[in-house]
């Protein structure tokens, strides 16, 4: 079980002169769902981008399943079992839903499983099946989020990284997206989810980290964080 865990150790990272992360450490064990919450600009997206190799840490370690991720090219990470649903979904709007799924199954290891996984995605999201020949860019925000998650599942990941899945969605749709995350979890997938919607995400994850200006300000079990007076005041609108 130790093998498929994700660990981030004292990571410093940023863009050009701007430093976004200052010695962030966190850990996700297999089968766990972990949240990273915090205000806009806290470095949450940067953290996910460091994990999936889109930017390299200036110092510190990122390890998954015993492998040092800083040493392998970003495009080899899906084959290692890491799937990243990026901020703003980043679907290919001019491709159909099914073509988006096909791009998600690009790796050599994923191609033989394309049909089985596609059908599984369609059972998870029956709407995707209805819209499989529709251009992804013509769908609603919620459907696009479902499609982006489906595309990530096509690589057969061990861990799913979700960047603000609720951003820009109506409350009812946010609910649907989190229900979906819950179902994906129940299938045994490890999930790391970055969110501003703190109240919602704490109901889905086991543990969470609070990220503020690039540093871990608090961490703990979801229930404990949800009950913490400081967290309640800052993030949950409580008193």
């Amino acid at each position, binding site marked *: 079980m130790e093998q498929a865990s994700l660990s981030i150790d004292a990571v410093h990272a940023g863009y050009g002169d701007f430093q976004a992360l200052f010695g962030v450490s966190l850990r996700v064990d297999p089968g766990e769902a972990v949240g990273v919450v915090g205000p806009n600009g806290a470095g949450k997206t940067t953290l996910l981008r460091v994990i*999936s190799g889109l930017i390299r840490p200036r110092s510190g370690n990122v390890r998954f399943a015993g492998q040092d991720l800083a040493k392998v090219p970003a495009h080899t990470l*899906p084959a290692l079992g890491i799937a990243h649903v990026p901020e703003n979904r*980043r679907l*290919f*709007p001019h491709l159909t839903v099914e073509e988006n799924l096909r*791009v998600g199954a690009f790796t050599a290891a994923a191609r033989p499983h394309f049909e089985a996984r596609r059908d599984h995605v369609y059972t998870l999201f029956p709407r995707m099946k209805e819209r499989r020949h529709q251009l992804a860019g013509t769908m609603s925000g919620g459907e696009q989020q479902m499609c982006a998650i489906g595309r990530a599942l096509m690589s057969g990941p061990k861990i799913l990284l979700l960047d603000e899945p609720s951003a820009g969605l109506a409350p009812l749709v946010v609910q649907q997206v989190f229900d979906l995350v819950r179902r994906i979890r129940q299938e045994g997938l490890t999930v790391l989810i970055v969110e501003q919607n703190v109240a919602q995400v704490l109901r889905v994850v086991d543990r969470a980290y609070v990220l503020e200006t690039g540093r871990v300000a608090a961490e703990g079990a979801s229930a404990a964080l949800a009950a913490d007076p400081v967290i309640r005041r800052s993030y949950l609108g409580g008193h």
Partner: protein
Amino acid sequence: MDPFLLEALVNGILLGGVFALPVLGLNLVFGVVDVVWLCYAELVMVGMYAVWFFYSQMGWPLPLAFAVCIGLVAVLGVLLHLLVVRPLLTQPPINQVLATGGVLFVLQGVATLIFSTEFRALGVDMPPMEVGEVFVSGTKLAAFCAALLGAGALWAFLKFTYVGTAIRAIARDREVMPLMGVDPQRIYLIASAIGGALAGLAACLLIVQLDVHPFVGLSFGPITFMICVMGGLGNMLGGFLAAFLMGLIISVGGFWGTTELSYVVAFAFFIVVMFIRPQGLFAR
């Protein structure tokens, strides 16, 4: 209908088919790599020499000369990418255009050194065919069919394969591709090889209609770029349709006036289109 006008229309469509291949190749490379290969027509020129050399000088069977030509120009496309384009990928676009423009003159110069400026003809011709009231050149018809087959094969590749789908995806969003397990550099190489292969196929279809000389690229290069821009640079379908539109304008223009005049009309049409729709006729 006037049979001669009908013939001009048919010839325009046949001409459009031949324009379509280099237009698709250029658009493919531009859409994926985001670099315009200014020396594209000269890649075709090299391919035309290859067919002429292997068929007329070495006595190889024509299909073999064609196959070697397509493979050779595909390799040339890969080399162009590796040696010229890739080192300049992070440079401003103008540097990339100038560099591939430099390759244009290098290829013209090398061709002149090796083959001199003499016009070389393949000397194969198929008998004309009578379709209804219209006489059609058998060679042109065969070239047109081959061009359509090439375009169809490209379409099927882009539509139904993993790599083809990734090529269409990367044209829109490069940065996200590693998250899909796609190495963009590898896709660039594949697109460059296919772009080269399309130039090679175009060379096979042109050498049977046109004598080759080091500057033959000038006779179809400018119009190829014009069609690409008119269809919307990087837009494969737009370029494909614009190729036929231009073929028709040139052919029908030649029917009412002279061939020289028809090219003037075509360029004038292009300029008018650029004023009205600078993003291209078929841009969405």
